[in-house]
């Protein structure tokens, strides 16, 4: 069973039980192993995406140069059929995995979120589609006040 479906079922069960508390419904789904991993390879392992194939059907839009590493807008669009989830990884962050978005019920395979980046690095997108994993990267240069 995929994680989104599992968390939805938990959510529904709790709602039915009449004591809906979102945090409990979703806590089980939070990928602690991935978010606490310090290297991209460990993150990929936590997602089950170690063998992810490079794909040109993943479009990452992000600044070439970000003036403020505390707020780096990242947009990922997947053109891979049956995209279920997109993860965003800032490879040189102390904890590279920034976010995982799961889609259902008509949501477009589109992720947009602003993240913190400690330094110039590749931003890696991981797409889960039909039980397989695909990946693409884009470099973002971080200046914080110029090249000093």
């Amino acid at each position, binding site marked *: 069973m995929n994680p989104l479906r599992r968390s939805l079922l938990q959510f529904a069960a709790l709602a039915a039980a009449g004591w809906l508390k979102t945090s409990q419904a979703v806590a089980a789904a939070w990928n602690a192993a991935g978010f606490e991993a310090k290297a991209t390879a460990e993150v990929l392992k936590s997602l089950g995406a170690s063998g992810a194939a490079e794909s040109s059907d993943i479009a990452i839009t992000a600044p070439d140069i970000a003036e403020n590493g505390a707020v780096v807008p990242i947009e990922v669009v997947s053109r891979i059929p049956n995209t279920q989830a997109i993860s965003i990884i800032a490879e040189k962050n102390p904890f590279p995995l920034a976010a995982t*978005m799961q889609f259902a019920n008509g949501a477009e395979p589109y992720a947009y979120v602003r993240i913190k980046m400690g330094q110039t690095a590749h931003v890696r997108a991981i797409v889960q589609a039909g039980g397989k994993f695909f990946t693409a990267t884009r470099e973002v240069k971080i200046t914080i006040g110029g090249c000093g």
Partner: protein
Amino acid sequence: MAEPMKIRARLKGDIADIRVLVAHPMETGQRKNAGGALVPMHFIKHVLVTHKGNVVYDAQWSQAVSRNPVFAVRVKGAKAGDKVVVTWTDNKDDKRTDEAVIVAA
């Protein structure tokens, strides 16, 4: 008490572009306050978005998401007037739910 989110849900064709602004400190646990003490980690772990009662988006975040987070979701097959509900939950179990109605662009 958490501040309300600002949700803008606009229809472009049959796709709703849902853009959300959240007031949250998203503390990484590495910042020191003015007194020199480390500010404990405090960040949103989970975001759930429903459209007409169905979950369309289920996100897990780390402390790497920016302070005062901004995120967006796009939903196909949406109509003007449809209700969108957004809920976030943070690592202190604080949470906030707000809703919006999709409007024609």
